[in-house]
C-alpha cells in the first residue's frame, strides 16, 4: 500500500518514493506552465530557441564586437544558451514555494522536491534548445561540428550545477525575505554582460580577466567554448575555483531549504 510510510523504509524504498514524487511534480509543472493549448509543452524548448535565435540574429546583424575571430553564430549559440541556463533557474525557483504550499499537504512532498522538479524542467528545456539549434545550424552549414562534445557537456553541467545551487538557495531565501525577488531581477540583468556570454575572457585586459573570473558561470561558458572551438578559443577557466564554489553554494542552499522546511505552513 502506497500510503504506509510510517515504517522505517529501506534506501531502495525511499528512492522509489522520491522518484515517484519528482515525476508527479515534474508532470504537474509541465501542465501548469504550458497547459494543453496550441503547441503545449513544446514551448519548453521553443521559447528558449526563439530567444537564442533572436540574439544570434541581432549579434550577427550588428557584427557584435566580441574581440575574437570565432564564428558569430556559434559564439551566440554557446553564449546565450548558457545565459538561459543559469539565469532562468533562479527565476523559476524564487517564490516557487509560495505557489506550491498546498502540495505540502502530502507528506512525501518536501520543499526541496518542489525546487528540484522545476530545475529538471528548466535544465531539460535549455538543453533541448541548445542541442536542437546546434544540430540545426550544423545541418544547414552555418556551423562547423564541435571539437569535443564531452567537454561541452562538462561545461554545460557546471553551469547547470551553479544555476541549480543558486536557484535553490535564492528560492528558499525568498520564502524568508521578500527582498530577494526584488533584487534578483536587476542583479541578473547587470551580471549578464559580465557572464562571459558576449565576450571571450582572453580578449580582456589582464585585470578585467581576473575580475570576471570571480563569476562562476564565466568558467562554465569558457569550457563550453573550448569544447566547441578547441584551442582556437583560448579559454580561461579554473576548475579548482568553480567546483568548490558550487559545492559551498550547494551547502548553503540545502541549509536554507532545511531552515525553511522547519517553519513552512502548508495551506
Amino acid at each position, binding site marked *: *500500500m*502506497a*500510503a*504506509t*510510510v*510510517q515504517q522505517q523504509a529501506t534506501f531502495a524504498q525511499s528512492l522509489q518514493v522520491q522518484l*515517484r*514524487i519528482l*515525476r*508527479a511534480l515534474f*508532470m*504537474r509543472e509541465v*501542465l*501548469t506552465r504550458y497547459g494543453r493549448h496550441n503547441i503545449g509543452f513544446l514551448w519548453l524548448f521553443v521559447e528558449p530557441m526563439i530567444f537564442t535565435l533572436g540574439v544570434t540574429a541581432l549579434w550577427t546583424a550588428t557584427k557584435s564586437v566580441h574581440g575574437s575571430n570565432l564564428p558569430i553564430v556559434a559564439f551566440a549559440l554557446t553564449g546565450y544558451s548558457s545565459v538561459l541556463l543559469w539565469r532562468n533557474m533562479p527565476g523559476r525557483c524564487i517564490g516557487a514555494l509560495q505557489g506550491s504550499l*498546498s*502540495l*505540502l*499537504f*502530502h*507528506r*512525501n*512532498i518536501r520543499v526541496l522536491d518542489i525546487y528540484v522538479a522545476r530545475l529538471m524542467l528548466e535544465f531539460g528545456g535549455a538543453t533541448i534548445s541548445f542541442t536542437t539549434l546546434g544540430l540545426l545550424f550544423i545541418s544547414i552549414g552555418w556551423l562547423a561540428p564541435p571539437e569535443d562534445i564531452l567537454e561541452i557537456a562538462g561545461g554545460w553541467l557546471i553551469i547547470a550545477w551553479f544555476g541549480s545551487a543558486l536557484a535553490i538557495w535564492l528560492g528558499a531565501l525568498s520564502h524568508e525575505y521578500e527582498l530577494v525577488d526584488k533584487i534578483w531581477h536587476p542583479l541578473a540583468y547587470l551580471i549578464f554582460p559580465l557572464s562571459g556570454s558576449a565576450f571571450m575572457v582572453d580578449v580582456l585586459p589582464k585585470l578585467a580577466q581576473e575580475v570576471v573570473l570571480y563569476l562562476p558561470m564565466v568558467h562554465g561558458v569558457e569550457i563550453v567554448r573550448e569544447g566547441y572551438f578547441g584551442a582556437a578559443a583560448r579559454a580561461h577557466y579554473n576548475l579548482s575555483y568553480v567546483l568548490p564554489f558550487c559545492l559551498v553554494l550547494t551547502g548553503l542552499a540545502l541549509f536554507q531549504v532545511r531552515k525553511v*522546511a*522547519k*517553519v*513552512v*505552513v*502548508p*495551506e
Partner: protein
Amino acid sequence: MISVRDLRKVYPTRMGDKLVLDGISFDLGMGERLGILGQNGAGKSTMVRLISGAEKPTAGTIKSSLSISWPLAFGGGFQYNLTGIDNIRFISRVYEQDFERNLAYVEEFAELGPYLREPLRSYSSGMKARLAFAISMIIEFDCFLIDEIASVGDARFHDKCNHELFERRGNRAMVIVSHDAAYIRDNCTRWAVLHGGKFKEYNDFEHAYADFKELIGWKPPPGWPFVEPVIA
C-alpha cells in the same frame, strides 16, 4: 495507534510569538473517532496538519504505526489552476494509484459532470469539497484527518460521505474537526475541546459541548444543536 506527546506549536507574529498548541498529548487507536471542538483560530487545523506530518511541531512528538491521510480540508492538497482530472492524475501519481480506476470512481462519486474537465478555480466551495472528498476516498488510509470537508455539501452528498466514512470505514481511526456540533456528536466516539492552546478530552459529547459553550461564552437557542429543521 497514533501517539501524540507534548505537542507544542508556536507561530511568530508581528505582536511576538503566539503559542497555538501548548503541550498536547493523546493516543488514538483504530476504530476511534476523535471530534475536536474549538473556536475559529483555536488551532484545530494546525493540529490536524501536524498529525498529518505536513507541518513540523515546534516541540513534542507524533508517533504512528498507522498510515495517515493528508488533512481533508478546503484548498489543501489541490491545485486551483489545474482541472479536476489533472488533480486526480497528480494525486494518483503521488500515491502510486491507478489513474483510470480513480477517475471512474471520482466521476461516479463526486457527480461533477463536465466540471471535472474545468480548472478547480471555477468550482464552488461545495464542488471543491466533493472532489476533495471523492479523491481522498480512493486511497485507503488507516487514519483519516477530516477538517470540515465532510460536513459541507448538500444533504444527499452528506449522506454519501457519511456512508463512505462511518459505515464502510467504521473500523478506521479518525480525527474530525467541525463547527457542526451535531455532526461531531453523531459521528465521533471521543470528544475534545481545544481552547487557549490547551486540549481537554471528554468521554461524552454533552460535557464537552457544555464546557465549550461556557469557554466561548455562547448561549445557544433552545433545542440546539438541531439535526433536522423542524417543519410544521
